[in-house]
């Protein structure tokens, strides 16, 4: 066995060297055309792969960070950047237009930790002025058919408020009193979406700050 192995090891560099020599001789003989072919192939593969990567999933840029939330005011506008347009076209998305509303998304809590489906979060505070809003939660991929589908989100009409008009939504895997939003799956990352309809905030996202968007506080996690 040992003899065979060492024999193979001795043969390998020799054959590698032979192949290398062959390639070198081939390159030298064919010269320019092969180099051109190599450059073209490199350009095509790298260019297409990077374009695919950049337009897959969410919008690569154009977001406006407000606390844990990211607002996407230009996603549906005529002046949207080419990447946003490509993402919309690939997903078949119909984004909210500027006069229609504003989408805010959050994938992390106030302290920058990824939203996890096994944890309990308190989402509360104020919402920018809007005629109506909805707060929804989604996990990655399709819904688990075995989990009972209770609700995906709350609207501004149906939410329970405190006397001062503020509210707290509890996003938790276990039932909670008040505004309970069940976690969409047992484990894994989650995303929150806050859609403001007919809002003046869409025209001037720069005027929004942390005090007018809901805070996302982690209360604890299931072991």
């Amino acid at each position: 066995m040992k003899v065979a192995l060492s024999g193979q090891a001795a043969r390998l560099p020799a054959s590698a060297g032979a192949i290398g020599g062959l390639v070198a001789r081939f390159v030298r003989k064919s010269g320019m055309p092969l180099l051109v072919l190599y450059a073209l192939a490199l350009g095509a593969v790298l260019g297409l792969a990077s374009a695919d990567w950049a337009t897959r999933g969410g919008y690569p840029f154009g977001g406006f960070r407000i606390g844990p939330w990211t607002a996407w005011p230009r996603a549906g506008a005529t002046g949207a950047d080419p990447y946003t347009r490509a993402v919309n076209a690939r997903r078949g998305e119909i984004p909210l237009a500027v006069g229609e509303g504003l989408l805010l998304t959050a994938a992390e809590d106030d302290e920058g930790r990824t939203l996890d489906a096994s944890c309990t979060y308190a989402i509360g505070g104020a919402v920018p002025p809007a005629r109506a809003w909805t707060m929804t939660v989604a996990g990655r991929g399709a819904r688990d058919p075995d989990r009972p589908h209770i609700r995906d989100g709350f609207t501004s009409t149906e939410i329970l408020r405190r006397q001062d008009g503020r509210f707290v939504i509890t996003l938790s895997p276990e039932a909670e009193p008040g505004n309970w939003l069940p976690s969409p799956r047992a484990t894994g990352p989650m995303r929150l979406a806050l859609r403001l309809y007919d809002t003046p905030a869409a025209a001037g996202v720069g005027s929004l700050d942390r005090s007018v968007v809901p805070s996302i506080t982690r209360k604890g996690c299931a072991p």
Partner: protein
Amino acid sequence: MRLRLAYATLAGFVLAGIVHIAAVLAIPRLAETDAVTRARTSENLDHPQVIYALSTGETAAPQEAWLPIPDPAVAVGVCAFDLTDGPMRVSARTGPLALSLAAHGRQGAFYAVTDQAAVRGALDLVILTRAQYDQALADDDENEPSRDVRIVAPEGRGFVVVRVIAGLPSQREAANAAVQAVNCTTDAAADDSAKR
């Protein structure tokens, strides 16, 4: 030899950049799963094609919805238009539920209006080309000004999306009906000549 290989690699990277930009710019034009192409099936209807109906009672939300992450409280319908057939008229009656109309082309949304802009409970949106707009202006009767909201589309094809918000689960049925109740008709060229 080494130097030439390095040059070829460099040329490959530059080429990759060009291919990347060209591909990103070409995706909206070539995509077959984008909203403009998918909405085209609604072109022959005179009411919006419901692409996201809200679940009511036992009936779950339909599976054919192609919106990636729809809002579970908003019913969505689309009306595709092709302005070569004539201007597109979208008429909506306001109801108790919030309704919004937005006109989209391949470049993105070029106009949006909500039912708060309605005059006497009616919202009439007419989407036309520049030439059709000039024609409509010329045809206007001075004694009877038109109440249409006229929008010049930057391109010939696109769609109008109708969104109706159901604030409460009990309003979902009404929201689905409100989307269907909107009228999308092509102002035929024959009507124009008859008016003249």
